[in-house]
């Protein structure tokens, strides 16, 4: 199945792309996707994502931590967004 990944801020700088469509096995979890991203972009990517608390990961607009965290089960055409926690009004 296919998962769309959108990247912002320094994650985009590391990856060099805004959007990536990944093919993953059925019943893949969020952690599987992050592992795959680490393989594609190198270990720097995973290290950045693991700076817990200041990285926001959304699955279809919902906080991963309020779903099943890294174990959240994904389905075909899900959208994962990874962005740094910065901003202001």
């Amino acid at each position, binding site marked *: 199945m296919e998962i769309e990944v*959108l990247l912002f801020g320094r994650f985009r700088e590391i990856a060099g792309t805004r959007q990536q469509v990944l093919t993953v096995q059925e019943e893949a979890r969020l952690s599987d996707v992050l592992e795959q991203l680490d393989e594609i972009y190198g270990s720097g990517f995973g290290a950045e994502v693991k700076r817990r608390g200041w990285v926001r990961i959304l699955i279809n607009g919902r906080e991963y931590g309020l779903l099943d965290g890294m174990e959240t089960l994904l389905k075909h055409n899900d959208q994962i967004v990874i*962005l740094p926690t910065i901003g202001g009004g």
Partner: protein
Amino acid sequence: MGGHKNRILRVNLTDSKFSEEALGDELIHDYVGGRGFGVKLLYDDLKPGTDPLGEANELIFVAGPLAGTNAQSFARWKVFFKSPLTGTYFKSSGGGHLAAEMKFAGFDAIVVNGVSEKPVYLWIHDGKYELRDAAYLWGVDCDDTHTLIREELHDPHIRVACIGPAGEHGVRYAGIFSDRRTAGRGGGGTVMGSKRLKAIACRGREKVEIAEPSSFANAVREQVKSYKAHPMFESFSTMGTQTTAEFTNLLGMFPTKNFREGILPGWEKIEGAEYTKLRVRKTACYSCMIHCGNITKARNGRYPGAWAEGPEYETIWAFTGTIADSDIDLTVAADKLCDDLGLDTISTGSAIGFAYELFEKGIITTQDTEGMELTYGNGEPVLRLIRQIAYREGFGDVLADGSLRAAQRIGKESVQFSMHVKGLELPGYDPRGAKAHGLNLLTANIGADHNSGYAPQEVFGSPIPKPVDRFAIEGKGELTKWNQDLTAFFETGILCSFVPALGMLSAELYGKLLSTLTGIKDFVDPSYLWHVGEKIFNLERMFNVREGFGAKDDVFPQRLMSEPLPAGPGEGQIFEAEPLLKAYYQVRGWDVTTGIPVASKLNELGLSFTLGR
């Protein structure tokens, strides 16, 4: 005395009389500074029912205790008044260098009342002051007013806060501008224009005394170290607020087409990386190593040569989501035009967005707009509308009173399309997508103000004090109070609101800065600061209660409470006002029916003087 200059300057423009008074130990101890001073002075000075545009209304400029020191991010100035837009207490805030210069010129606060017969500006320098003729400045835009005053007084380092044509023409949401940093909201510029006060100009060489210099220096070092160590420091420093449209669109809460949708089609064209391409320079406020400001230049397209300091997130939203047009160059051009003419971008954009919906519904037509087609996706009329608003020409005259009064004038059931709380236009966050953020908009003491109790937990996923589900109702009354009281106590020092939103300064370190600066030991205790924050918020509420406001005014437009967000991550969400407000009033210690603080709460906070008034 450390920090404060202990001097208030009072100016009556009716008879051109000046007086000075001390802040006094009691005011300093009980209200700390900044927002605390502003609300207490305004509450004491104004009688209920004061006409916002009359002689008796005041305009109180306040610099915080830490302004003018090398502590970081305390450069903001605040201005307090009764708002001609909302009829409530109002606070508005700008950055730049004005607050530090007020201190160097010798004053913590400048209180202006009365109405001048002729246009004047107030010149304050090294403890001295005078009113000067501003007839030649009347009609001049904000940037040029700065230049002309500096030339007249032969000093390029003078700091100015001024109004533009919008304030002179009585637009109810005219702002006050200082080096393109703006106290935009609520009509401070309107009050200033009604007094025929074109500007205040400051310059001085006085020092800000520090009670315990070596301990203060250590606290500042600690602050600098904590900024540098913060994982988000570098990113925020680079981007400022220009990434926020990413969050709000990804969360499906970017108000689009007058709050009917939560995602702007084509929002990728206004994300942070796109503004990076237009950025030509960084800017900073006095003594702030974040330097989040951006000078942005439009591409050579429809608006050749257009540039702005900004646009900040709210302005980006105000000229895209409102009209469903993602033209990045328009956001730059509209931002600069509002800065030049002296308009609040949020209320301006929101009023224009309101007009677009009326046009779609056929409530207004090209006959009303002198031929302008206000159709979604067509940003063409925006700059013309901004000019018309500022000069009260054509249809702009209707919009210049704010969308609520415009709706009352237009009739034909248009009131339901005015997106406001207490008359203040909503900013760029759909309350249905973030319930604590929405609850703050509903209960802020100046109407729909995001900065009175921003919920970074919901919008940015901040884990402080803990991660929350943005759609949940439970716990949001408590969280909203937490965000509002925290903001209120940090604003005693007039700390920039981005710093606590990112968790970059703790209450403990703030207390250390304040206590070593002033020598007042109570300030080191975070529980004392929380107490003062709650007191300030409640005194503001009591100002409004005295004006007749209460639970009946904590109301959103019906759309937000009954029409679910149609698509995106927030699909199906409404704003559940009743349970959210009830929980909020309870945790605040307010009567759950009237929304008025109960006597025991007021006594506990040292506000018993508000009882029976």
